[in-house]
């Protein structure tokens, strides 16, 4: 916590608001240069992130375009009721949670592992080539990737031909509910792993090489070097990336699911985003905002919990 805050909460018995303000003013005044650095960006941030925030009210209003957000009549929690009471909401919530948990457990660590593995490659050219290639799928939209996947995993696609060599019977993999989550998670990892690992490459680049040299001199095995030097060095970055991603826990990748889902897999593939989309036939801004608020609320709770957990282990880490 900042020093100014600590002094204020210290609570001098008779301290008045006046002196509190004076104290804070002095805290800012002693950091005049820093304040000037800070302000331009902060003002831009407030302008574009906080001024439009009143739009959240749409979720609680009967939104009339002509009256605007403020003057539209209140609707209370009606839109949330509509959101939660719609047909098969529970199914959508359950599927979303399953996919979210799977992606958090499996997709999130994947780029960390890739970065660590690549870091062990000593041939620089090869390492750079792999880095470049793994980041390619990020640039293809799911419309295109889905087309490629449907043909690769189709009845006479490449995957079946490959499995045919081992005598496995051909299937249309993407339309079988049993494999849907596996395909969603694997293709998601495949698409994002290279892109996601860039930040870890950068973190590994700033590890002091003398640490490795010392470890080698001490006879530390390669495994111990990864475990005791590389991993701890990028751990702060891993934690930050985790905290940043957990806030979007329920956003499990609309584009991917929407493009991969077919009628046979809809019972496992229907997620909150597709559920809401079906209801937006008539510019239902209120329902859209209610659903987005629901996602944000869950995200907020998770971020706060995760941040507190991190602080339990290390007070220096965390988002705030």
């Amino acid at each position, binding site marked *: 916590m900042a020093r100014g805050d600590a002094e204020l909460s210290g609570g001098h018995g008779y301290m008045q608001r006046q002196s509190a303000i004076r104290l804070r003013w002095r805290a800012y005044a002693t950091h005049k240069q*820093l304040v000037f650095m800070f302000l*331009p960006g902060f003002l831009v941030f407030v302008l574009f*992130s906080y001024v439009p925030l*009143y*739009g959240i009210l749409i979720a609680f209003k009967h939104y009339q375009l002509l009256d605007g957000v403020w003057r539209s009549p209140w609707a209370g929690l009606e839109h949330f009721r509509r959101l939660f009471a719609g047909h098969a909401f529970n199914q959508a919530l359950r599927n979303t949670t399953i996919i979210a948990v799977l992606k958090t457990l499996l997709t999130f660590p994947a780029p960390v592992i890739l970065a660590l593995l690549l870091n062990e490659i000593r041939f620089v050219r090869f390492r750079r080539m792999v880095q470049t290639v793994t980041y390619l799928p990020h640039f293809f939209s799911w419309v295109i990737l889905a087309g490629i996947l449907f043909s690769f995993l189709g009845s006479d696609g490449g995957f079946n031909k490959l499995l045919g060599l081992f005598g496995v019977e051909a299937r249309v993999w993407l339309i079988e509910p049993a494999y849907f989550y596996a395909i969603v998670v694997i293709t998601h990892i495949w698409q994002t792993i290279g892109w996601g690992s860039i930040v870890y490459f*950068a973190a590994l680049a700033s590890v002091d090489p003398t640490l490795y040299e010392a470890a080698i001199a001490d006879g530390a095995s390669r495994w111990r070097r990864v475990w005791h030097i590389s991993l701890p060095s990028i751990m702060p970055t891993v934690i930050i990336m985790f905290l940043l991603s957990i806030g979007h826990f329920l956003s499990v990748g609309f584009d991917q699911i929407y493009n991969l889902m077919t009628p046979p897999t809809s019972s496992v593939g229907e997620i909150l985003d597709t559920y809401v989309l079906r209801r937006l036939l008539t510019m239902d801004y209120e329902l859209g905002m209610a659903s987005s608020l629901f996602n944000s609320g869950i995200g*907020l709770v998770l971020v706060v919990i995760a941040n507190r957990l991190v602080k339990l282990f290390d007070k220096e880490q965390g988002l705030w």
Partner: protein
Amino acid sequence: MKLTRGERIFEAANAALLTLVSLTMLYPLLYVLGLSLSAQDEVAAPRLLLMPLHPTLSSYAKIFAHPQLFDAYLMTIERTVLGLAAVLLLTSLTAYPLSRKTFPDRSFIMKLFVFSMLFNGGIIPTYLLIKNLGMLDTIWALVLPGAVTAFNLVVIRNFFESIPGEIMESARMDGAGEWRIFFRIVLPLSRPVLAVIALWTGVSHWNAWFDAMIYMQDTKHQVLQLFLRRTVIEASLSLTPGEEMNMARVTYTPETLKAATVMVVSAPILLIYPFVQRFFVKGILLGSVKG
């Protein structure tokens, strides 16, 4: 350096695994490239290793003849360059004070940033804001709203915090002001993270279309991704359901042209990464400090 047998096996297995993974990731690129080089009526023809038997540049010729391609390229380059400059300068300037433990209300301000990442007011209030600021149909509508975001700020601040405090302390002893410390010490030491942020920002500006679609009226101000969207998405997301059954429709976007558009739009940004990689060279941080 002598390797143990176990280490040799690990190295070989590691290299093999990474090669295999890389090959699967080359697939979509080769697929789209192959398609873009095919003649329109040859899409279904047998092909060798994804490449057509008789490659042709006719799809590319068609795209480069498009009346709006040049303007769109200019606009995209412009927004990417300005957007990069705005993000790197403003975000790092804002992040630096927040990385200093003595900065007042630091924790509260960080909470403000994180909160903004989770909640947003939707399209309409943002559009009204841009409109009332008089930024409709200007480049600023594409550059400023994303100039300082929580995500970038947190990542940069986190890196700044990891810079050993002694380095700055000794500079301060030598009488350096905050601006000097920031530009002469902090920024140069932060090259890897700034490279990452630059890459993230550059790519997201290059790939962005929604803001341009909303804020830009003039055809000359359309960005490159809108092109892609029009050719690739349009067919699968037509307004009137059943446009595919419009019987008089003879002209539609062939797969080959879509693929070529993907290549034309994405190639420049794909080629940038190898240049960014140079900033990830080991030992930049301490090497430059000690040197």
